[in-house]
């Protein structure tokens, strides 16, 4: 059993596997090792779901001021999910999945948008340690995905020239399973006789596959769903939130019965809708591209922007077979990603392209979980943080499109990254506005929190008078000891000017602690996770 040899090694691993590095997890990694820790996470019970949390806050109420239309409870829900609760690896994985299988709250309107996005998030947390095939079917039939990529209400062709909606058929191939180009087992492009990449599907594949996704719509009736009359409102009644949590219902009369020929497979005419769906998803799940395509992007989300093909190949092999002959076991994928030699190897000075830029959501959640937060009301009134000049410049479940906040192949122009022919997806969010906006936003929240969510710095208050100890504590937990001595000296020189002693007030101590935390969080040495 491979174990972390130092606290820094343990922290470095934890900041790849989840958001923060609590002492108990560091101890577990040093005592029992990586695989043991991972298996404990896989076996641990999931925390409260997003939908259950919304229920607990009465967000399903039918109120006179029409709160059933308010989207912001969806933002409160996801920040509560990310900031609170013990099962943070499950949440970190779900966040990574939410940036691969993207659904955004932003365009969702109508009744109960928070429940629509909450039920989608819950699919990701419920299946993040399950099987890819199951996950693929659950997201396909999820109400939020149905809204976002238009399977909801998708009708078969008709005699007047109406065609099935192609959106889900296209994006499930391009983004969720096989990608644009045929791949080798290590994620590199297969090349044709002219040394060109080979496109993995064409328009005809999409037009055919689109038929499979016809006949679905939101289910307002199953599992005890009901309507509440709303006299005097134009809509007359409000559905219960079951439509958001129920898988979309299938109606055969709206389903195309034409044959489906795609990716070399044929689904016969008049195959039942559920059978056609199952067959089509099997084709995508079993396609040679799906393992390496998914593996590379998950490595990018958790460990490094530029994994070697061999690393991708090892993770793809775990996707293909978990060691017990099971394909698509996601636990095997996470273990392969996080315990790979390329992930565990300590960064070296000569490896100047190692790692990735931490994305703003992860920085914010890491900060909150590291210093500790508490909600004064339990409401978690943290809104959409997408604003780039005043806020974080990125907000969970608020991607501007199905193409995520950044693309896996993004190359920042006019940089040494481009010169080296490397990729840096998270740099797509970095520009003159966002770098300033982030520093300003963190200066504000590190001291004052955000609405009812307040930082406690509980572990740091008792040692606040001991600046070197404070800096060491933060350097380990924020940056796995990757801040340089130069930077630590700059921060220490400033910190001593606060003149905090053991008898200083908590407010004075918090001024110091928030400032040094903010300075670390602003430093590129922290921002780049190596």
């Amino acid at each position, binding site marked *: 059993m491979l174990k972390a040899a130092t606290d820094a090694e343990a922290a470095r691993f934890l900041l790849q596997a989840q958001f923060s590095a609590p002492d108990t997890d560091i101890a577990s990694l040093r005592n029992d090792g990586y695989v043991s820790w991972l298996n404990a996470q896989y076996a641990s019970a999931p925390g409260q779901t997003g939908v259950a949390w919304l229920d607990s806050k009465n967000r399903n109420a039918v109120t006179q001021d029409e709160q059933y239309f308010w989207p912001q409870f969806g933002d409160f829900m996801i920040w509560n999910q990310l900031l609170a609760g013990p099962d943070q690896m499950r949440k970190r994985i779900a966040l990574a999945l939410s940036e691969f299988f993207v659904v955004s709250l932003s365009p969702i309107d109508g009744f109960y948008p928070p429940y629509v996005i909450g039920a989608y998030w819950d699919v990701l947390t419920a299946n993040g340690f399950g099987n890819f095939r199951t996950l693929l079917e659950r997201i396909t039939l999820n109400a939020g995905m149905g809204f976002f990529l238009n399977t909801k209400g998708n009708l078969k062709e008709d005699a007047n020239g109406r065609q099935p909606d192609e959106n889900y058929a296209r994006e499930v191939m391009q983004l969720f399973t096989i990608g644009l180009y045929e791949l080798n087992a290590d994620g590199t492009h297969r090349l044709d006789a002219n040394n060109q990449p080979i496109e993995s599907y064409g328009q005809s594949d999409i037009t055919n596959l689109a038929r499979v996704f016809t006949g679905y719509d939101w289910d307002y009736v199953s599992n005890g769903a009901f309507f509440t009359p709303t006299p005097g409102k134009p809509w007359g009644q409000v559905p219960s939130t079951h439509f958001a949590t129920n898988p979309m219902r299938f109606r055969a009369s709206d389903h195309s019965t034409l044959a489906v020929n795609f990716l070399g497979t044929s689904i016969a005419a008049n195959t039942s809708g559920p059978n056609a769906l199952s067959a089509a998803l099997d084709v995508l799940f079993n396609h040679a591209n799906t393992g390496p395509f998914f593996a590379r992007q998950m490595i990018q989300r958790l460990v490094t922007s530029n994994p070697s093909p061999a690393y991708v190949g090892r993770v793809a092999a775990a996707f293909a077979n978990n060691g017990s002959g099971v394909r698509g076991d996601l636990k095997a994928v996470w273990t392969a990603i996080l315990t790979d030699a390329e992930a565990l190897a300590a960064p070296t000075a000569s490896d100047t392209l190692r790692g990735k830029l931490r994305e703003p959501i992860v920085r914010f959640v890491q900060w909150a979980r590291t210093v500790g937060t508490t909600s004064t009301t339990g409401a978690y009134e943290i809104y959409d943080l997408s604003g780039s000049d005043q806020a974080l410049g990125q907000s969970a479940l608020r991607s501007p499109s199905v193409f995520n906040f950044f693309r896996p192949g993004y190359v920042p122009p006019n940089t040494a990254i481009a010169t080296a022919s490397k990729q840096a997806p998270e740099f797509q969010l970095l520009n*003159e506005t966002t770098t300033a906006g982030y520093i300003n936003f963190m200066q504000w929240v590190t001291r004052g929190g955000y609405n009812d969510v307040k930082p406690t710095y509980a572990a740091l208050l008792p040692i606040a008078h001991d600046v070197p100890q404070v800096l060491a504590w933060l350097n380990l937990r924020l940056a796995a000891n990757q801040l340089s001595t130069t930077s630590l000296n700059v921060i220490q020189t400033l910190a001593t000017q606060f003149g905090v002693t053991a008898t200083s007030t908590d407010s004075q101590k918090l001024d110091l602690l928030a400032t040094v935390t903010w300075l670390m969080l602003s430093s590129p040495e922290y921002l780049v996770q190596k």
Partner: protein
Amino acid sequence: MSKPDQWTRRLVLQRAMQLGAMGVATPLAINLAAISEAAAFDSTDYKALVCVFMYGGNDYANTVVPYDAANYALYHQIRAGAGGENEAGIALARANLAATALTPAAGPALTDNLQYALHPNLAGLKGLWDQGRLAVQLNVGPLVQPTTLAQYQSTNRVANPLPPKLFSHNDQQSIWQSNGSEGSTIGWGGRLGDIALSSNANNSLLTCISASGNAVFVAGRDALQYQTSPAGAISIRGIDPNQTNWPALRTALNSLITPTSNHVLENEYSIVTRRSIAMEGVVNGALAGVTLSNTTNALFPAGNPLAAQLKIVARLIGASTALGVRRQVFFVSLGGFDNHNLLMQDHPRLMQRLNDAMTAFYAATVELGMQNRVTTFTASDFGRTLSSNADGSDHGWGSHQFIMGGAVNGGRYYGTAPHVSIQTDDQVGQGRLLPSTSVDQFAATLARWFGCSAGELPGILPNVGNFSNTNLGFV
């Protein structure tokens, strides 16, 4: 698929000059005669190109709409699945198009004697058409070379190359902006910026500006994208003496966020932060000297993100003299055009936003006396299908675009109108238009207005040599 990149003499010289200015030894001996040749572009006037990108793929058929009775009937039959002239399916009502019906000032009759109307919510743009300030480019899209339907359907891709990943959002966005699919790092706006850098000696970083997010369109080989928020440049409070009166804190923060590093990602992050800090005072200082009248300000509606972006672009153009810049390329965008569903609910709102933002921007350039020096054009991922999927349309290829400005030969159509059909040979199925004009021709026309010579076009648009006409005449 593209030719090897071609460097013109001027670009080579410019590169050498920049290297020299950066203190790097240059292998080229530059004499004064060569420099004066290179300076031919450096006229004293000001010109700006503004790209308005509609993310998601704009529905061409409800933007520039068949209006004459015969062609409207075809449009209605395809989009509504039945005859008639009322709003149905994804067809607009004919009566609602009367006020925005276009009468061209000149030009030959269109295919099948088409008469078009703009979407009813584009009334402001229709007014600019009437004034000769708005032109419509018909059926333009990415092409490697002129392509027929038979060539599109051919399996010989060596003889009949196509742009990669047609119908895919992210790739077609990238191809419109840069001639290359996702991951490409040089856009044609940025290449124009490369040529313009020496015209902007005082503030060359303000040559290529995005008021939207990061966009490859405004990334050049040497020209960098500068990004601004609609509020102008954002000041980092912790290093700003006006907001932080503790010098030691300002010094500490500044040193922590701007280090040089051997680690490439850390170093590139710092570079962006340093640029942000260096330009903030310059940009906001120059903007402080620009005020638009209350009347003009009121034309930019609150809650319209495109209007907010175009307003800061107008103000930056107003500050161009103070900033010492003479050639600029801007990028702004509006999202939400992927109208697979609820087209009749969502698309009209987008058209209203486009109309309000563009007309307000034109009015602002008039107030600034810059309307003849600013040319604005629209672009989008792709057009969409003419046929309906019940309440929306799907990904297509060619589309119609607008060109707006005082220098535009407006009130006219350019290019070839497609038949209103899902069967003719100017579409590739379901009314996905096979472009009859390429993005390279469209871009070349704009580049020439900007000041590029014909010889410089291949260095900017690698496939432009495959097309005979590189000046479409709309500006």
